[in-house]
């Protein structure tokens, strides 16, 4: 606004009142301790619009019959402040009714990063105009989802579906047994691998410490999920044995500084494998929750 380079940009705030309601899901005991969340699906039951209201809407807005449904994850902090994160959004038509699915995997990933004891999972569902602007219709007023009832179990009540894999079957097994050679088909594990720096010509007289280090490597294979899972998520590649956590390696090198040789510490990132896991290419890498 105060820059000399830009003409002042004037905007109009178009009120897009939205109907929204808060869904509360108790998550305790819902995720088994040694399981990996593959996907969390929120199912909402869209109630049919009465015919008379449909006809009235069509007379007023013949070309616009959709509304936007948005899900946000709501986190109420200990100090009472709260924050939201956009999780999923999709368009629904007022001519449809029945179960609508939204992907809320990221919301559950965020919830899993909270400190225990964790609060219930809070999802804010809002229905807004399909777009802002003079031609936008009020279709969003006709979209209604069955609410969450106090007693639970009502027909059409919102459902949270959690798809998990049991890591006792589909995960890695920690460190390889140093006494047992890793055979073909062995389960993914972290194997010792020593890197001898003294044997590297370029390191001579340059790298002072360490003479070598244990880098480890991930070896072995991973059990593939059942066919049904692959069918549902075609974008997921096969599960592979990968380094899911690595750590840096500090070294001391000799550096020419001020006309004389000085020892200096340098940290090389991702040089040592801490954890091996079975992971699919294309799988969602959970966003880190900001503190």
């Amino acid at each position, binding site marked *: 606004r105060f820059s000399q380079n830009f003409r002042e940009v004037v905007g109009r705030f178009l009120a897009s009142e939205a109907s929204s309601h808060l869904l509360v899901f108790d998550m305790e005991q819902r995720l088994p301790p040694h399981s990996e969340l593959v996907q969390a699906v929120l199912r909402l039951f869209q109630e049919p619009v009465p015919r008379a209201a449909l006809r009235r809407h069509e007379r007023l807005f013949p070309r616009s019959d959709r509304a936007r449904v948005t899900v946000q994850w709501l986190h109420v902090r200990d100090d009472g402040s709260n924050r939201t994160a956009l999780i999923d959004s999709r368009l629904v038509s007022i001519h449809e009714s029945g179960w609508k699915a939204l992907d809320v995997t990221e919301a559950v990933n965020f919830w899993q990063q909270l400190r225990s004891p964790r609060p219930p999972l809070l999802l804010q569902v809002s229905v807004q105009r399909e777009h802002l602007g003079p031609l936008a219709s009020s279709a969003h007023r006709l979209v209604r989802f069955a609410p969450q009832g106090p007693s639970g179990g009502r027909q059409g009540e919102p459902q949270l579906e959690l798809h998990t894999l049991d890591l006792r079957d589909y995960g890695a097994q920690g460190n390889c047994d140093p006494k047992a050679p890793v055979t073909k088909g062995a389960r993914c594990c972290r194997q010792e691998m020593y890197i001898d720096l003294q044997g590297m010509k370029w390191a001579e*007289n340059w790298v002072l410490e360490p003479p070598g280090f244990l880098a480890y490597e991930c070896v072995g294979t991973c059990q593939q999920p059942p066919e049904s899972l692959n069918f549902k998520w075609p974008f997921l590649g096969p599960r592979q044995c990968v380094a899911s956590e690595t750590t840096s390696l500090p070294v001391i090198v*000799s550096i020419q500084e001020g006309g004389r040789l000085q020892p200096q*510490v340098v940290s090389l990132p991702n040089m040592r494998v801490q954890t091996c896991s079975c992971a699919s290419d294309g799988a969602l890498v959970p966003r880190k929750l900001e503190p």
Partner: protein
Amino acid sequence: LTEEQILDSLLQQLHLSEVPIVDKAAVEGLVIPAHVRAQYVALLQRGHGARSRGK
């Protein structure tokens, strides 16, 4: 982890484009000061804790 990857990482961290020529005699007389060694050991111990996400 390959030898090239280690060398590339070291050159990158030191903003060098090639391996420096270091005189062997100069290195033999070189003593690592206590504060440099302490920094190295501290990083080594912290490395076992701080974890970065791989793939």
